[in-house]
């Protein structure tokens, strides 16, 4: 079986996470992804968006996770000669991705209209923070800031907690995912029309779509704002018992289910008073408090032995130390080793299986400009491309 995106060439001018997450997935599907980076510093993810764990003195683990299976080509788009070389590369490309603020690419002569003239078949894909209208259009799209304005911070945690952001960059990852959906739709349509397209996603649109279920409630229920439960909050719009609870030795998650049935299994008579399913929402705080008190009495393992055979929706809450030594994790074969600058880096793989196969590759994240010369030669680009000092 051939790869899904065999022979597709992607030029990725984007930085941080949103655009690079899109190109990561395209590379998993078999596309060839070349990062186009500025001289000396490259993708800001090499310096500003970092964890405190570096891979042997180089970039942080965050950069390595996002940029495996890609090549790096250095070009200064503000320099005319280098920009012309980049344009030569664009002539050969199927997809171009960027996530600059609105106007940056246009000022460099690389806006969609200009690029379409040199490659009408190109799918030109861009992510910005807030779209192209309104008071925020010039502001950079940053994950936490988008979570802040989109209302998402009022969905997690308990009602007395301050606004609580989701602790993973959901806005970046979802915008990247939506961008890939647009890119592939456009590539698909191109096979019939022969024409490229402009694909646009804003992180705000992505986070609105992520909230589509609860926003649709808000739009139609008289604009009631979400009410997180007082304790053990799992989802502002869902009834008891939905949430995470302490047990004698850890934590147990309980999803939706009948409160009296749960009460019987837990040996908790107080829960029998909530026979009406409408009470499970309107009285969820008191119900959750009763459940919490009861669950403290035994270990997570003991509760699972009682609840799982009765098909109650429950699970042990695990951290990485527990998860990564479990058999359920081992059978997924979720890890892979890639080689970056001669060093092995352990990371995760693409989450999707295709035709029964895992999509893995040993190619690690590139050093800045590592492939500039080879790509120039391969594509017959002009000589004299700027070489960053450290690579000479």
């Amino acid at each position: 079986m051939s790869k899904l995106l065999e022979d597709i060439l992607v030029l990725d001018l984007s930085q941080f996470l949103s655009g690079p997450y899109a190109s990561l997935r395209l590379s998993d599907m078999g596309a060839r992804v070349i990062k186009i980076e500025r001289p000396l510093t490259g993708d800001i993810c090499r310096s500003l968006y970092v964890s405190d764990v570096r891979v042997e003195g180089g970039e942080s683990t965050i950069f390595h996770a996002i940029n495996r299976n890609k090549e790096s080509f250095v070009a200064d788009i503000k320099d005319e000669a280098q920009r012309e070389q980049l344009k030569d590369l664009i002539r050969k490309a199927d997809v171009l991705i960027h996530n600059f603020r609105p106007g940056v690419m246009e000022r460099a002569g690389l806006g969609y209209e200009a690029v379409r003239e040199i490659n009408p078949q190109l799918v030109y894909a861009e992510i910005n923070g807030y779209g192209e209208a309104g008071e925020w259009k010039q502001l950079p799209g940053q994950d936490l800031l988008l979570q802040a304005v989109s209302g998402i911070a009022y969905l997690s945690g308990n009602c007395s907690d301050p606004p609580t952001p989701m602790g993973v960059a959901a806005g970046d990852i979802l915008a990247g995912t939506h961008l890939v959906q647009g890119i592939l739709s456009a590539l698909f349509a191109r096979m019939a029309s022969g024409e490229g397209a402009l694909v646009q996603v804003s992180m705000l649109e992505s986070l609105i779509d992520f909230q589509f279920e609860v926003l649709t409630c808000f739009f139609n229920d008289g604009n009631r704002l979400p009410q997180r439960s007082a304790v053990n909050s799992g989802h502002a719009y869902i009834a008891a018992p939905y949430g995470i609870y302490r047990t004698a030795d850890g934590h147990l998650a309980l999803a939706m289910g009948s409160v009296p049935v749960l009460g019987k299994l837990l040996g908790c008579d107080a829960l029998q008073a909530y026979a009406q399913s409408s009470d499970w929402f309107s009285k969820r705080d008191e119900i959750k408090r009763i459940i919490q008190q009861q669950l403290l009495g035994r270990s997570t393992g003991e509760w699972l032995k009682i609840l799982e055979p009765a098909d109650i929706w429950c699970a042990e809450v695990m951290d990485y130390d527990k998860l990564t030594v479990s058999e359920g994790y081992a059978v997924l074969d979720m890890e892979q080793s890639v080689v970056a600058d001669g060093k092995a880096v352990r990371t995760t793989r693409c989450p999707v299986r295709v035709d029964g196969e895992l999509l893995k590759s040993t190619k690690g994240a590139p050093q800045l400009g590592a492939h500039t010369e080879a790509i120039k030669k391969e594509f017959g680009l002009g000589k004299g491309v700027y070489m960053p000092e450290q690579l000479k």
Partner: protein
Amino acid sequence: MHSPLKGIVVLEFSQYLSGPCAGLRLSDLGARVIKIERPKEGEAGRKLAIEDLWVDEDSLLFHTINRGKESFTADLNNEEDRRWLEMLIKKADVITHNFRPGVMARKGLDYESVKKINPGIIYTEISGYGNEGPWRDKPGQDLLAQSVSGLAYTTGNYHDDPLPFGLAIADYLCGNQAVQFILAALIRKRRTGQGAYLQLSLLETLIDFQFEFFTTYFQNRKHHTRSEFNNGHSLLSAPYGIYKTSDGYIAIAMMPIARLNEALCCDELNGYKEEDAFARRDEIKSVIARHLLGATTQQWLERARTFDLWIMPVLNWNELKKTETYRLSQLTQPLGLRASRAGTKTGPPPAETPLGDAKTGPADSETSLADVKPELAGTNAPPLIAEGGTLLTTRCPVRINGQVFFNSDPAPAVGEHVLKIRSELSVKL
């Protein structure tokens, strides 16, 4: 480009959110999405409500997830129904399902069987935890997948109990991952004629979602810890987080301590160097938190704009709706409900007996395709929308050539399109 996926037929054997949100996006982009449902009751998600909101016989939630789709019912034990279904499968490009492992095989609808009917099919299967191993039969439910995947240790502060995301991230992202791979498989199919077998799970989706955290963990096996205060992202240094001001909250993204100090005029920060941003993260955050209480959100935002700092206000939806960005971005769309659908009943059926109860049949009962899950509380609440009314919902987040994709056809009634689809199949045969 009005509809990039025009002409593509998707059969959705999926229920609830993960599979159906994939179908929703494919429908937004122009594909024809047909829900394959059991007769009478239809998909189990019809009876799953949040906030106890109902439109007609079906929940508002169902209407939200299933706009723009058609419904075809089939009793798989009835030979005639089965023949119609096989004819439909021959015409389809894509199948999605999210039943527990083994259910589709028992119905003779697993990939190997379907491939015999239609070798070019793109068959997409979503499970909770994969098809092998000790967790394969666990229910594929969002909160549980979050809990198993370690995700509950990313949100909230150090002393909090594990805290889940307050949205169904596993279902939603898994469905969106599926869309990407379905599209890539459609591209390959158009080039080579090959079909594809795509397999996803909620757990793998959430591990990929945390790929930065896992990759960091693999280097030294040291578990990341949420900051003691104002946690925003446990891999990132101070000041990253949400902070209280004298009249609200602001979010501060990553930035050098010196620049922040310059903008906020916080003398206490003078004692900290950039290398302290990780090592003394909690201490720095508490200094910033105290300082920010001294002025209003608006005052801090003005400082931030002057210094081009990454700071934004924390808004709720009412506040967001008032912004110019929101108003100018066409972020919503009306769903026109068919007159024959809206208000036909005075509410959902009483739900004192949840669907998960044994009386309604086990998950794999012989006559049902449904992987029944217990439903949320339902009452006799009156329907939200009057006959012929409209619902307001969101829209597809992707724009192509400047075009916003609206998809304002309502969700279908159970079996609403059976006759239409059968007559189309008869004509073509």
